[in-house]
């Protein structure tokens, strides 16, 4: 996996296993973004839709609308990236994202990490487990996914900060 920057665009270069993981993550988060807040598992609802301000009913509704709109815009980006990842016949595949899209993609991938940790009840101990023990864990699939997304988030942030490095 590589992330390159060409002027105002990032190119995310993925080989087959990475592309498969990416498609799986994006598909899952896309589905979850379409679910109304009240229908999500409580752990996820708290993460994605809670507001620590004491809001009255009207402000709460405005807050939920705002989040739905924000995630709706993220969904458009996810759809486009999933299209790019489908039907690939030659490897590696290169996903192209503008800088504002890269910013959104970071939030999307972070949301997916939060989602996986919440659903599988993964905390600091499990996430910081030695890499060789991750594969022995019954939660190895979500853990590998969480670490893969972390790797990609780090690469994108480095490229946003240091275009030429």
């Amino acid at each position: 996996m590589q992330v390159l920057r060409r002027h105002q665009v990032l190119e995310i270069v993925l080989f087959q296993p990475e592309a498969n993981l990416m498609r799986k993550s994006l598909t899952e988060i896309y589905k979850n973004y379409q679910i109304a807040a009240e229908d999500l598992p409580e752990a996820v609802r708290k993460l994605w839709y809670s507001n620590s301000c004491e809001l009255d009913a009207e402000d709460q509704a405005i807050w939920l609308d705002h989040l739905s709109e924000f995630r709706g815009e993220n969904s458009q980006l996810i759809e486009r990236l999933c299209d790019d990842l489908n039907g690939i016949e030659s490897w590696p595949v290169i996903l192209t994202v503008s800088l504002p899209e890269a910013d959104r993609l970071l939030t999307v991938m972070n949301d997916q990490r939060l989602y996986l940790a919440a659903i599988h009840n993964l905390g600091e101990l499990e996430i910081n487990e030695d890499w060789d023990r991750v594969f022995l864990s019954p939660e190895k699939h979500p853990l590998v996914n969480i670490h893969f997304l972390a790797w990609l988030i780090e690469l994108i942030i480095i490229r946003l900060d240091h275009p030429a490095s």
Partner: protein
Amino acid sequence: MDSRLMQSSMRAELLFPESAAAAVEMPLADPVQDTDLLEAFDPGWEVIVWNDPVNLMSYVVYVFRQVLSFDTQTAQKHMLEVHHLGKSCVARATREKAEHYLQQLQQRGLKVSLQKSS
């Protein structure tokens, strides 16, 4: 302009039209409204970011820079405070501004709360 100020001003114009309005002192605002106004402009609201085990340190630094316009050094200082002390106050502002920061940080997945500074 604050809508309550505007309403108060409009009320004064209705009660004391034209020249009379200039000569007569504006009635004092309702004490309850005064409290609301003071609170609206009080810059003592703190935005607190809390530690969580999932968000990456680099991501938290990135979000601080984007949302709060911190330079890298300041963003890292606050991220390390969150990591080591469990929380960090990243902004003090009016309630409206603090709520704006809170929403921006929350929609990016950070754990945030508001508190009135003591």
